């Protein structure tokens, strides 16, 4: 514990379209308003964070220029491709091998869609920021995923590729293999032939080039992974799940929380976005003509039944309910709203 970095981490998770980026920025702003030095980072193809915080978006850490924050907030829109290239340059034992990979056509066309590479790069950047020990808090806006839990398991999947030795099929010439390896190799050859039938010789050639260029980086990859894992499972790391109050979203969020629990991770709190229209209190007891009354009653009963479902689904987590503002609130407005909610919670 003595040498562990003091930097805290909050990972925002949830499916797309729930306001995850906006609320990650708000969470970071809130901490900065409270005097902490904070970084918020995202891999967001639509560059939402860039617009929200006025960042440069060139993959560099940028100080947010809002007077209220007194220079305590930095934002970072990750350039996934750049970081992956960078990592490969650092990790490959021979520069020539790295350059060969970076010039591999398959890699060039597809490295950004290489499954797991986005998750890998954001975890890699997180590790770097935490290890630098220069910040009090790092807020990570995780990439939207079908299964947000994949964010945590993606690096394992990448690592498995090397642990299981698939790379060696493409790497080691047959003549250099021992007797036992040749037997194992027999199965592999069959698989390769099947793959070739499906994809063609050119694909296999590019693929084996790809793996050849990767030689030597699996050890480093594993070391990095161990470090990252200990950050994620450490007590300095909190998970917050973002969802909306729609029944389907509540159900998705419960599944995500269960998935996290299976990974041995407790979800600290849930931010439920767009729970109710911000004006609902002003019309709650208003006497209305029949048509308008019907409209208000419809919306109120919808809010109520969603509340019931939420309380049932998230019985053990701390819930923060955020209204639908009818406009896009800026992160500082939202941060102040979150602060006010927190005070309310303390009073109760």
């Amino acid at each position, binding site marked *: 514990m003595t040498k562990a970095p003091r930097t805290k981490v909050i990972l925002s998770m949830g*499916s*797309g*379209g*729930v306001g995850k980026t906006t609320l990650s920025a708000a969470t970071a702003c809130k901490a900065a308003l409270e005097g902490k030095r904070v970084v918020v980072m995202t891999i967001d*193809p*639509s560059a*939402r964070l860039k617009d929200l915080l006025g960042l440069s978006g060139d993959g560099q850490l940028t100080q947010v220029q809002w007077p209220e924050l007194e220079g305590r907030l930095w934002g970072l829109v990750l350039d996934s491709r750049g970081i992956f290239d960078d990592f490969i340059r650092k990790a490959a034992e021979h520069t020539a091998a790295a350059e060969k990979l970076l010039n591999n056509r*398959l890699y060039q*066309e*597809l490295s*950004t*869609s290489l*499954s*797991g590479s986005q998750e890998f790069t954001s975890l890699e950047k997180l590790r770097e920021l935490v290890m630098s020990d220069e910040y009090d808090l790092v807020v990570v806006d995780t990439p*939207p995923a*079908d*299964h947000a839990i994949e964010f945590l398991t993606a690096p394992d999947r990448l690592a*498995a*590729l090397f642990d*299981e*030795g*698939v790379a060696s*099929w493409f790497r080691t010439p047959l003549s250099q293999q021992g007797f036992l390896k040749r037997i194992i190799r027999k*199965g*592999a050859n*069959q*698989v390769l032939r*099947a793959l070739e*039938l*499906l*994809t*063609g*010789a*050119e*694909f296999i050639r*590019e*693929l084996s080039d790809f793996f050849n260029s990767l030689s030597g980086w699996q050890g480093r990859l594993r070391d990095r992974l161990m470090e990252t894992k200990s950050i994620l499972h450490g007590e300095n790391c909190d998970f917050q799940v973002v969802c*909306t109050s729609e*029944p*389907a979203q509540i*159900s*998705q969020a419960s599944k995500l929380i269960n998935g996290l629990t299976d990974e041995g991770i407790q979800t600290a709190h849930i931010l439920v976005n767009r729970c109710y229209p911000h*004006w609902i209190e*002003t*019309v709650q007891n*208003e006497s*209305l*003509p*029949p*048509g*308008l009354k019907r*409209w208000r009653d419809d919306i109120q*009963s*919808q809010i109520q*039944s*969603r509340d*019931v*479902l939420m309380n049932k689904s998230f019985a053990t987590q701390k819930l923060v309910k955020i209204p639908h503002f*009818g406009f*896009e609130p800026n992160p500082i407005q939202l941060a102040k709203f979150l602060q006010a909610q927190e005070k309310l919670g303390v009073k109760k």
Partner: protein
Amino acid sequence: MQCAMLAPVALARIFPRMKIHFFTGKGGVGKTTVSWMFAHELARSGQKTLFIETSEESLLPDLGLADSPSTFVPKEIPSQRQNGNQWKLQQLPKGQPEQLLPGPRHERSLGRSPERSLWRGQDCLREYAHHLLKISPLVDLLFDHKITQSLIQVAPAVFELALLGKITSGPPRLVGPPLDYDALVVDAYASGHFLSLLRSPQGMAKAIRFGPMGKQSRAIHEMLINPEYTQYHLVSLLEDLPVEESLELGSTLKNEFDAKPHLWINRVLQLDPEQMEELARFPNLNLSKVLHERLQFETKFRTQLLDFPSWADVREVPEFFAPQTSQDTGGQADRPRDLK
């Protein structure tokens, strides 16, 4: 369940020879519900329709739209669940507004319903391998072996290609097991992810010029840019971010795939004449102010959306206060809303 009704004649006019309908849009705008609704309308108009989910897990049960999850093998939709709400769909082309009104309920229940499937990349890939290799043990070796599993899992764009390959496997490509439908309605990924899906065949074709991989990738891309086979539907809301994203996505689809997407505006405020009259008569009520403000917002965002010149057409789906939980919907049929 909410179902919009398009008159069959109007449908035939809008989609004369079409096969594949991709639905995309920002996360959370209602892609699944709108595309599900559209699949029902195609089916009722007499087209043999397959509704395809592409997420890891079937979303229909959580949305209260079906009792059980969709599976890879198509499922029939039980007919007693078909009764939709009385929806009025307004078409808003520049020039002549065309109103498509629902037919009487008894007519609708006579129509056919779509079938539904859940197509995940890994399942599509396995099916394709089976079809091509024809030797089950070899396919099992490929997919169940720990090593190949991890290889396939990280291999670039393979799942995307497998999914698109399956979706475009009907005529004229005719690759893989036969796919016999008049229309496929694909509830596809959200904007950014959808674009990388669409771009994957081009990317692969550039990297791999020869062999089956290159050839198939080019053929898939050809189908994606041919409006006779493929149509794009964009679901949006009258709110800041969805509008912004729709306009961006609309131009990208136009520029990169030469597509004229169909625009669906979801959750539009729907007031009946009585409510509109009350709104005018009691302007000082808090609720009236709120509704007026929302109508103003909607007008502003609608104008922004309609300024974009390349929509094939524009349709609006009213906001609907649905039965709230999946348990509710599982038990009861939809609650008809009196629209007068």
